[in-house]
């Protein structure tokens, strides 16, 4: 039975999910009942009362008050029950428990940025402990986005000029997909993110040390990973095609013409500057749309990107 349920809804992975799913299945049962009733009656009537001669005479039935009251009131009672259930579940999802870990989320075209209470910031992925409530306080730097985690059954718009919040308590360690659910332009469908749900020990260790594997990884590989996971890939292609920003293939060592007409060689210094102060020099023909990654990438990650670009011939 479970395999079937998971064909329709993602695996339940938060404390909020079971109640929501139960309501979902309750409504499904009601819907199946009514649809079978309606479709069944249509088929029955069509078979039974199919016109056999053009002069058939039908009974003149104009209305039936009792029947009409019954089919207005009974569905209404069912619907009111569903309303209260849905409202109750919604209120639970609005108010985070007082002991929740708080994470600030900033959405901008087309990356998610996360900030922990101690000031640590990450981009497009973050870690949380299992079985602890987590409160997300969200804001947008440009247009409306929406932070959607199907596995947790949570979604809330991320609006410029005001804070919105949502919360969850993950029930199973694992990696969970985040989508941007409010249309925000060209990179909307690439505005993805991952939540790593760790057991308590792994989480504590991660808080102090960052990702273990990343430290051992060779620089070019680390650069490739940064390109994929930190949002670079949204605008900078690797296959020589033109994106929102210049493609990286074969760019190392070339002379690029800037908007003000100056020529700059693509070397370590230029790449570093482009990452930390992207508005300083814009290559001619592109728009100044890249956000700064200052404080978001560790030094070793920037070195990784440089080495990775060097290798893209």
């Amino acid at each position, binding site marked *: 039975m479970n395999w079937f349920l998971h064909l329709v809804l993602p695996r339940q992975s938060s404390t909020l999910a079971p109640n929501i799913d139960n309501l979902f299945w309750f409504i499904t049962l009601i819907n199946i009942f009514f649809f079978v009733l309606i479709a069944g009656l249509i088929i029955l009537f069509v078979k039974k009362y199919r016109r056999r001669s053009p002069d058939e005479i039908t009974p003149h039935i104009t209305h*039936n008050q009792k029947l009409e009251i019954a089919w207005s009131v009974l569905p209404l009672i069912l619907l009111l029950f569903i309303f209260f259930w849905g409202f109750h579940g919604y209120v639970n999802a609005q108010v985070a428990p007082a002991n929740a870990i708080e994470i600030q989320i900033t959405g901008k075209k087309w990356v998610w940025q996360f900030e922990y209470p101690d000031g640590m910031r990450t981009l497009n992925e973050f870690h949380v402990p299992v079985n602890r409530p987590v409160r997300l306080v969200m804001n947008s730097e440009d247009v409306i986005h929406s932070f959607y985690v199907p596995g947790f059954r949570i979604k809330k718009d991320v609006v410029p000029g005001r804070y919105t919040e949502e919360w969850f308590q993950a029930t199973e360690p694992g990696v969970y997909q985040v989508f941007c659910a409010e249309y925000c332009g060209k990179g909307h469908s690439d505005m993805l993110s991952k939540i790593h749900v760790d057991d308590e020990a792994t989480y504590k260790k991660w808080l102090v040390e960052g990702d273990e594997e990343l430290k051992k990884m060779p620089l070019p590989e680390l650069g490739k990973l940064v390109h994929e996971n930190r949002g670079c890939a949204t605008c900078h292609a690797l296959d020589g095609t033109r994106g929102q920003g210049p493609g990286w293939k074969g760019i190392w060592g070339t002379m690029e013409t800037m908007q003000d007409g100056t020529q700059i060689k693509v070397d370590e210094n230029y790449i570093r500057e482009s990452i930390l102060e992207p508005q300083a020099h814009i290559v001619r023909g592109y728009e100044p749309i890249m956000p700064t990654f200052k404080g978001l990438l560790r030094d070793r990650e920037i070195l990784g990107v440089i080495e990775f670009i060097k290798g893209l011939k």
Partner: protein
Amino acid sequence: MADVLTANTLAGHHHNPGENYLNSPKGLMSWLGTVDHKLIGIMYLWSILFFFFVAGILALLLRIELLTPKQTIMTAEQYNQVFTLHGAIMVFLFIIPSVPAALGNFVLPLMLGAKDVAFPRLNLLSLYIYWVGALMAVGSIIFGGIDTGWTFYTPYSTTTGGAVSLMTMAVFVLGFSSIFTGVNFVATIHKLRAPGQGWFQLPLFVWSMYATALIQIMATPVLGITVLLLFMERMFHIGIFDPRIGGDPVLFQHFFWFYSHPAVYIMIVPGFAIISEIIPVFSKKTIFGYKAIAFSSVAIAIVGFLVWGHHMFVSGQSTLAGAIFSFLTFLVAIPSAVKVFNWLATMYRGSIDLSTPMLYAISFLMLFSIGGLTGIYLGAMAVDVHLHDTYFIVAHFHYVMMGGTVIAFLGGLHYWWPKMFGRMYNERLGRIGCALVFIGFNVTFFTQFILGSRGMPRRYYNYLDQFQPLHAFSTFGSWILGSGLFLTAAYLLATFRKPMDAPKNPWGGKTLEWEADSPPIEHNFDFEPVLKHGPYDFRPERPKLDEPVTHH
């Protein structure tokens, strides 16, 4: 039907045999300058069908793009423009004017036994305004395109490039065309009913048109104001919606849905209108619960104004406001449910003829039921949080808008085609077309419910590999659906290759339009119709209505 009408032949209204409204006007100018509701309806009909074709092609292109998780045939920018245009054209240039301005314009005065609508010149103006709005909308594609989605959410729409200002002005202009049709219908229904035709002798089509007209008149100005504010923000940087200049982006959503939720009823209530005509005629049985159907249309028109916030459960609006909107949403579901039960009860013990219009009506009952029932998930706030802005929504509103309104429109088109053009279509092809549309529609859109409940967000150009099988299946369905619609277009157009062969009343309808010739003469009737029985009275021995007072 000699007992239906008294043939008060009026002097000066004799006409030559073979003369009808289609061949009376001579030359292009007499079409463009006409005030005949029938000609205006026909010009509207070809216009909206053209845009249905355009937006349908865009839909097929979208589905092809979604065949693979990455780029298939277009870039992300093109994809965003194509889905925006698909939505905007379908809503503003096809569905909203489809039943009222095209079919309604033709049929409604006939149903009242009138010679025309109350304000024939206003009617022509409405058509011209529609054309101007349509040209502006088409112009916005040429002058830079729009990529905001048909909802124009701020601050995306106030900051993105392209021709958003022109498109919003197009919507502003189109709104007037809609309002003029609404005003005209209200006046016509009040003032031009046939002698003996009281409010409860009106066909239910007319009741629904009345409810629709009320919503058009009351809601459309709000859309006009909203897009005007949007235009002013883009042009003059007056801070209304953009928080960087002191605006509130969520305010736009309130304004927009204050129109656009009632607009859902501007689109679906005309669907109810057609179904209420087809089912009694093809069941040869009086409608069950006439007053319940009539009043439920009006109830929907009123309560429909108070549920807009159910589009905004995840927008950050207050929990209390959300709860009220959710509650009212469940209330407004009841009148729609009542109608479905009434139509079913009409079929009970009827004499059911499964001709093409009835097949469309039955398709409507099934598809609209699915559309309505899946609305329950979305009205339930906790479940909506998961489903909002996913393909579940896309599937839900296509079941209501296409499975409901467009299917009903196609049913109405087949039902009144003989009346409008005097020609019968190929019945066999009609049934095959309907079956293809029904199957194709379900393959395309039922799949999207599952995509959505599994978490696939809408308006996604790229998507995760895990969703590909369902997307591919949906695309496959769109080809079946498309072939059904192309077949339908082909056999309907083929009717013009043969002489007029339609009888006055091919289906045995009891409403007044079936007393006019097929196609009707220029002034509709060469006598003044006087109503002698109710619109759905199929009894062989009909008790006469009270002798009406005739006035000339």
